[in-house]
């Protein structure tokens, strides 16, 4: 009775609307995150993640309302990330109905934030997002991967594997490992990086970035991912959650 490998669709949300293209049949409003989350739930998604890509604080308030309306209708776990900088931000999202909160850049600048959130709400609410890429040129890190910010455009010189391990030690309940090299390529997850982090962290690990085919999800599970996250393949209708799970099940991966 092993825990199932979770399949998690991720939606980018700005000003209360899903911003990447969405291609579903029979959808009244392809830009409504609440309706889309319900659709993914009905398709068998094990969790849904919203990434708040809003630039303005007014839009962040809108996000809280989106979370509230989603929690009223969707009865699988909801993770919300993007722009979380303080325990008060976490509190606001949890009260609105989020089950977990994703933290990224703010924790790189101030790692104590991870411990502060875990101490106040428990480590199970905290998903640490790591946007990582292979180091190139003059920069070197022990693992060969570094943490990036600004959507992968800026390197930090921080070793990605060490950062994941440190964050888990500080109280991150799970690690969302996003490959900035693979992101958007649909060429498959960065399995090497996934294995490197898996060897060093004992909290759940979510693979992200690069999904294109159902087989890619199988490979990530075999490389040690506890969950697999994807955005565009689901949004554009290239794959359904059901198709991904069928492939995983056929390959012997435990799914719900």
């Amino acid at each position, binding site marked *: *009775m092993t825990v199932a490998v979770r399949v998690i669709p991720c939606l980018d949300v700005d000003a209360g609307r899903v911003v990447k293209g969405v291609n579903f049949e029979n959808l009244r409003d392809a830009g409504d995150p609440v309706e889309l989350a319900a659709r993914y739930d009905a398709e068998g998604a094990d969790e849904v993640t919203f990434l708040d890509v809003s630039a303005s604080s007014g839009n962040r308030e809108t996000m809280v309302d989106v979370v509230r309306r989603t929690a009223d209708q969707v009865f699988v776990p909801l993770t919300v990330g993007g722009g979380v900088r303080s325990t008060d931000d976490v509190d606001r999202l949890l*009260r609105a109905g989020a089950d977990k909160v994703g933290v990224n850049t703010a924790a790189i600048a101030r790692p104590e934030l991870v411990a502060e959130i875990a101490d106040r709400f428990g480590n199970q609410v905290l998903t640490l997002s790591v946007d990582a890429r292979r180091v190139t040129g003059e920069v070197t890190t022990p693992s060969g991967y570094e943490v990036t910010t600004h959507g992968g455009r800026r390197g930090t010189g921080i070793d990605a594997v060490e950062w994941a391990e440190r964050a888990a030690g500080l109280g991150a*309940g799970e690690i969302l490992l996003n490959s900035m090299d693979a992101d958007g390529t649909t060429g498959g997850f960065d399995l090497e990086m996934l294995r490197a982090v898996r060897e060093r962290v004992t909290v759940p690990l979510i693979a992200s970035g690069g999904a294109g085919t159902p087989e890619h999800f199988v490979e990530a599970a075999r490389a040690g991912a506890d969950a697999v996250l994807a955005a565009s393949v689901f949004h554009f209708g290239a794959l359904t959650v059901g198709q991904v799970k069928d492939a995983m099940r056929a390959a012997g991966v435990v799914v719900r």
Partner: protein
Amino acid sequence: GRPRVVVLDYGFGNVRSAVRALERVGADVELTADRDAAAEAHGLVVPGVGAFAACMEGLRAVRGDQVVDRRLAGGRPVLGICVGMQVMFDAGVEHGVRAEGLGEWRGVVEHLDAPVVPHMGWSGVDAASGSTLFRGVEDERFYFVHSYGAQTFAQGHDEAADPRYTPPRVTWAEHGPDGGAVRFVAAVEDGPLSATQFHPEKSGDAGATLLENWVRSL
């Protein structure tokens, strides 16, 4: 009429989801820490996330411990969820610190010794035979997120000697690799006191059925 359910609002737990999930299955739900309302409702739900000790403190601050005691003494149903189940045991040990629980059940809630912790995600259970809660969803998966669990469940000898005594129905689950998994209590049904380690309010249709089974029993 619709069964009246109070979700105890003591500052811990994803109460919004619990309220909505109970409404979805036909309960008339109130979110409150009011002792009279909590005492008089047909059913009381004790949610809980985070640390055991902090939840116990929060519970005592609203006299939730007394409300639970009184309800159970009067045979009135209570449902604990996640840490709301863990606090029904004698104690919890987190980071080496022991905190007293409500002591309704013998046993101590301890860290899960597994390769990947928290146990986060959808797991199956070994539903107790004759279970009311799991009727129709015995073979489904439920959403768990926890690092601690009750890994034993002891029945009281005095109670067992009483001919009127009905033993609790205990549902178990496992986490970890085949052959080396840690076993823990996933749910208990003990007269008026029921509890689940997983989150039925986040367990999709299977969770809804379980909550409906409970609401219908009120």
